[in-house]
């Protein structure tokens, strides 16, 4: 039987049983046979082409209607359990009375708020008990020291600067330095004590 279209297109005419297959059809048939093998072995392929999937679905329908694709009892129990969990928010296993998760949360909410408030109150009480009752500020009276040990203006030492002496800043600095050095030496000679 001759074909106008590639034989692996599902919408094409199906060849007669005895028609010679093309190389492409042979390859496709082998792939499909392997997929059927896996499906019958309970290991349906995860990924297939669209055409193969469509054919495999037909094969599965035939098997299902023939009673060859029943759920195992273990799978059935597992699906029922999953469904119950899904319906009540994952709180079902082993309980005789199921309470929807929303109701569970609603029941626990006041207790959670009360417990959190209690913790905050206890923490505040502990902080209050451990805090110092009065703050003692000790202000030390300044020691009486000679004027030459203190920071002081240099006005008394230099005096008013006339315009004609404006360029003698270096000499004025020397004077101030010598004066401060005297104070420093005096302090060192007294052992740092007034």
């Amino acid at each position, binding site marked *: 039987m001759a074909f106008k279209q590639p034989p692996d297109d599902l919408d094409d005419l199906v060849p007669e049983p005895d028609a010679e297959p093309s190389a492409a059809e042979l390859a496709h048939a082998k792939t499909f*046979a392997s997929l059927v093998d896996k499906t019958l072995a309970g290991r349906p392929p995860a990924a297939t082409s669209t055409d193969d999937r469509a054919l495999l679905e037909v094969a599965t329908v035939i098997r299902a209607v023939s*009673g060859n694709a029943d759920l195992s009892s273990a799978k059935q129990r597992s699906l029922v359990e999953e469904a*119950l969990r899904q319906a009540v928010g994952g709180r079902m296993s082993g309980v005789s009375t199921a309470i929807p998760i929303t109701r569970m949360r609603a029941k626990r909410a006041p207790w959670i708020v009360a417990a959190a408030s209690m913790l905050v109150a206890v923490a505040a009480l502990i902080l209050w008990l451990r805090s110092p009752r009065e703050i003692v500020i000790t202000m030390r009276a300044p020691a009486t020291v000679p004027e030459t040990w203190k920071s002081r203006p240099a006005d008394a030492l230099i005096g008013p600067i006339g315009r004609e002496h404006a360029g003698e800043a270096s000499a004025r600095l020397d004077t101030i330095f010598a004066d401060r050095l005297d104070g420093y030496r005096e302090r060192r000679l007294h052992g740092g004590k007034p």
Partner: protein
Amino acid sequence: MASEPATAVEIAEEQRLVEAAQAGNLDSMRPILERYAQPLYGTVILPRLGNAASAEEVLRDTLATAVEKIRRFTWQGRSIYPWLRQIAINKVFDVHRQSKRSRRLADALAHEVATESDPDSHADAQLMADQERRSHREKIEATMELLAERYRLAIELRLVQELPREECAKRLTITIGTFDVLLFRAVRAFRKHFGSDLTESSPDGV
């Protein structure tokens, strides 16, 4: 699922479990779900999807929805099964809405649904599932009748009897490679005929 109809005692027990669930004890739904999981999977979901993994997901969602919405269910003196079945069918078509191609399977089996999911029907759950299974089988057989003899044999040996490829090839006195081609063509031919006499209208009003 047994072919025998449910007894009055079984129906009364089902009613007690449903009422307990409606009163808040959702775990009382467990025996009902375990009882109807297989008929829902084998006669309602898988034949309309053709994909075991998707069918298991739809079954799980169906059962979960039933638990979530049990308060809306009104006991009418018959099994809860028709209600579960209708949830399952709605979910199947939710899946098919995403894939026009796969919807062909559901459409092929849709005409039985219209009569069997009639809300006025008081069919027992087992009888209903049996009737549906029988109806699917008739549809499959009718399609098989349209196939060439060798295609019918290939499908019968490999997909119904589930014989190994080697055994199928041996019985047909052909090589395994030739049998692979035969089965491939047979399934393609089956697909072309399956549901070809049905319209594309929305199935059974779901």
